């Protein structure tokens, strides 16, 4: 029931918002819809935790064997929490911005959330694909109508890029479906396939490309900085906070358990791409003058680390409990970081948006001295920025630490190289983040920044929510670790590829 609600609330709410008679109502209605789905997730996490509440199954397109089935495992619950927090933040954060056609803006935004909910919850591959695209279409319109100057060219690039990936994935899905005995798209049916090595080697790329483009992984990232820069900030927030997580979630659910051998064989290549991406994006971030682009590149670096850690988990476990144990905590790191990075980057976008709307510029060179004129804002900014570089006592620290752990215990013979270079990424991220803080908040004030910056109630609320999450999970990460513990054990056992190799 909860699972279905998480899809239906934003879907119906979005439809209602689109056709509201009075545009002024759009914002409060959308906020309420987002809050209701947040409440639904929380209820599902605390009260209605039974599996029955989190699953739903119905006939859908019978001729092709697709079913409308949703299933909320811990990963899905975790990501649903993130996506509903994201929707609330994105609406709260843009509360004081007046846009043209607000009813359409917020309606599409909610539809985007519906699509993402489907992706996180679907246990039917066809439905998953459906949600994957459903999240993309509203994002396309949102960025193209309300975006920046170069929005039209940039968003079509973004759209076609991701579309190529997803249609290739569609072929993979059809191929797997035709191999299942009853022509079904169910996750379990795919999982039972036991594909041979020679098939997995190439099938892997059909899926991986789609996910890598979404994450985005170097060298498939070229759409991302432009798209983040040009999209309106509430949408950038959702894109980078939630939507790119779809890529990692899809790898976790649809790639590693189903194409385990493929993932293992290519894991060195993938980790290599991820590590190169970390360095590449961090180096570019250091040279950025545009705040939004800087955050965009930092996001590539962070997601690269997550992917590297995830692919370090593939490989032989030989059923040895030691290896399993390291895999387990490594995977917990991935889970933690999915959430933490999502929240932190959303906080960063809120702050960037505030700066842009107040001073009309995102250029670091045109800012300065804000620490004196806007102290509250500075405190928020510094906390969230430090969380972004994974300082201890912030939520990103345990996640990143465990991820490095995963890379260190990888089966690859290059693991030390990978570890060293991805570790360099942390130092680089400290450089660009602290540099950014220095250029915005310290130094001389100029005519623009002299008058400071006041936060409205809605923005303070949104930022406090982020800071709360940062500190709570930073000081007591055990809460999150407990939550993901059992699932992680199950998961690392399930991606053990010895069952394939025994054949």
């Amino acid at each position, binding site marked *: 029931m909860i699972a279905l609600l998480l899809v239906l609330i934003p879907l119906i709410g979005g439809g209602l918002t689109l056709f509201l008679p009075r545009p002024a109502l759009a914002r409060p209605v959308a906020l309420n819809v987002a809050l209701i789905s947040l409440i639904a997730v929380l209820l599902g996490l605390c009260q209605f935790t039974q599996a029955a509440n989190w699953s739903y199954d119905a006939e859908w397109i019978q*001729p092709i064997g697709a079913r409308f089935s949703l299933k909320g495992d811990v990963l899905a619950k975790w990501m649903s929490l993130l996506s509903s927090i994201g929707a609330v933040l994105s609406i709260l954060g843009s509360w004081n911005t007046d846009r043209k056609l607000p009813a359409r803006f917020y309606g599409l935004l909610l539809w985007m959330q519906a699509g993402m909910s489907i992706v996180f919850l679907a246990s039917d591959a066809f439905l998953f694909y459906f949600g994957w695209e459903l999240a993309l279409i509203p994002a396309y319109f949102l960025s193209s109508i309300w975006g920046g100057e170069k929005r039209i060219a940039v968003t079509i690039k973004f*759209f076609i890029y991701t579309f190529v990936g997803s*249609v290739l994935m569609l072929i993979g899905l059809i*191929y797997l479906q035709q191999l299942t005995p009853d022509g079904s798209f169910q996750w379990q049916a795919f999982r039972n396939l036991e594909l041979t090595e020679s098939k997995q080697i190439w099938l892997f790329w059909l899926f991986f490309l789609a996910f890598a483009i979404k994450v985005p992984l170097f060298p498939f990232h070229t759409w991302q900085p432009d798209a983040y820069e040009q999209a309106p900030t509430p949408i950038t927030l959702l894109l980078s906070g939630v939507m790119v997580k779809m890529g990692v979630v899809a790898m976790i659910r649809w790639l590693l358990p189903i194409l385990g051998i493929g993932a293992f064989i290519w894991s060195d290549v993938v980790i290599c791409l991820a590590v190169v991406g970390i360095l590449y994006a961090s180096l570019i971030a250091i040279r950025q003058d545009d705040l939004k682009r800087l955050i965009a590149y930092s996001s590539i670096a962070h997601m690269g680390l997550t992917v590297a850690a995830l692919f370090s988990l593939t490989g032989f476990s030989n059923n040895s409990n030691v290896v399993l144990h390291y895999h387990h905590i490594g995977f917990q790191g991935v889970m933690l970081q999915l959430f933490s990075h999502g929240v932190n980057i959303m906080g960063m976008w809120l702050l960037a948006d505030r700066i842009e709307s107040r001073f009309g510029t995102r250029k670091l060179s045109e800012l300065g001295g804000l620490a004196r004129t806007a102290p509250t804002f500075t405190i928020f900014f510094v906390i969230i920025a430090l969380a972004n570089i994974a300082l201890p006592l912030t939520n990103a620290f345990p996640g990143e630490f465990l991820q490095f752990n995963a890379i260190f215990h990888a089966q690859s013979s290059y693991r030390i190289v990978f570890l060293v270079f991805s570790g360099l990424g942390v130092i680089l991220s400290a450089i660009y983040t602290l540099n950014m803080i220095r250029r915005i908040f310290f130094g001389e004030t100029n005519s623009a920044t002299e008058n400071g910056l006041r936060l409205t109630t809605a923005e303070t609320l949104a930022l406090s929510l982020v800071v709360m999450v940062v500190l709570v999970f930073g000081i007591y990460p055990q809460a999150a670790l407990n939550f993901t513990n059992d699932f992680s054990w199950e998961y690392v056992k399930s991606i053990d590829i010895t069952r394939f190799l025994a054949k």
Partner: protein
Amino acid sequence: MNLLLLAAAWGVLMMFLSVSGISRATIRTIAQVGMGLLFLSTIAELQGIVFYDLNAPAMLGVDRYALVMLSVLSGCGLLYFLLSAKDMADVGADYSEYFALIFFIFCGFVLVLSFTSLLMLFLGIEIVTIPLYILTGADKRNLKSNEASLKYFLLGAFSTGIMLMGIALVYGARGSFSTLELVGASGIPTQLLLGGLFLIFFSLAFKVSVAPFHFWTPDVYDGAPTVFTSFMATLVKVAAFAGFLRLFDHGFGSLKSSWQIWAGVLAVLTLIIGNMTAVYQQSVKRMLAYSSIAQAGFMMLGVYGLGDAAKEGMILYGASYSLATIGIFAVLTRMQDQTVEGFNGLAKQQPWVSALLAVFLLSLAGIPLTAGFLAKFYMLQAALPATYGMAVVIVAVIMAAVSVYYYFRVLQAIYFREPSEGVSFPAFAPGFVRVLTIVALLIILLGLQPGWLLRYLYF
């Protein structure tokens, strides 16, 4: 066979109405009623109510596939009449004759879809194309229309000749025109039979404008009056494809080892040429002409893959592609400036029509939630298991991504650009918008639940 007799009778009726001197509005109503009756009579036949049975199994045999396809065609025909019948009056003076010709074409559809003899296929194709030559040249004072008509006629006649030659060779090899006896019991084809097969194959490929036999298409579609382009590019093409699939599935299916690879090559060529050329078009009409070639490439995947998925896919493809293209053409006919720029800023003045256009364009591009996506999905499903299926399918989806570029260019113009100075958009009549809404709803409905249409294939 309900439709065959009714369509012929109505065609004759429309022909005589032209000399009766009644008003155009009445003529239009009579034509629309007639098309409605065609649709209802096919639905009735699907339910087992046959008004008129033609018992000639050696010539014609109606099966579920033919009936479902015919109901799709006549249903789309009805919507086409409701949307575009008024615009036909602007083409020329012979209003009633245009309708008569279209009804005759529907007779041809019946033959093309239900032939059991190669002769009937030939007759059907001819009955469909000869009225089309006339319709293409209907704008008599327009040189482009004349040119298109002549071009179409010469090339069409030539390809018909090739088809006849193919039929003759097949007859020579097998001693029969029946599609049931095209292949001997041994299953090993003679050279004569193969020669005939490929001649028929190429000429049908010409009729459905598959590359490299597509060169006539852009000129003819561009030159013909836009209302008739809409009809030619959709219903006629779909019917020809349905016949193509019927012949090569039932008739030559067991010989597929010798021709299937060529179907794949043609499909790939068509997809690449159609999509790549469409990218460079400035005029929406010409873009749609190339897009119709590109879409033909996808339908060709059905002929390449064969099987139940191909049949279901062809029906779904026919419906989704026809609906969307008819809708776009109906709006396009009313636009003053028919280039992509002509659509700039339409959403600001006509938000509802723009939303409907968006549905059509998204469906043509094959975006989920629309029928176009599921139609493509079926075609991929049909083609994937075939020999080299994976390679063909990968080309197909990459080309589908290319098609997003040019379909979305219109979308960008509508939604994201400001209207140019001094351009005014036509006012759309409420009735027109209502029908257009029905078309869009059908597309979304089929995109969510294709079973509502496809189950008629089996029950």
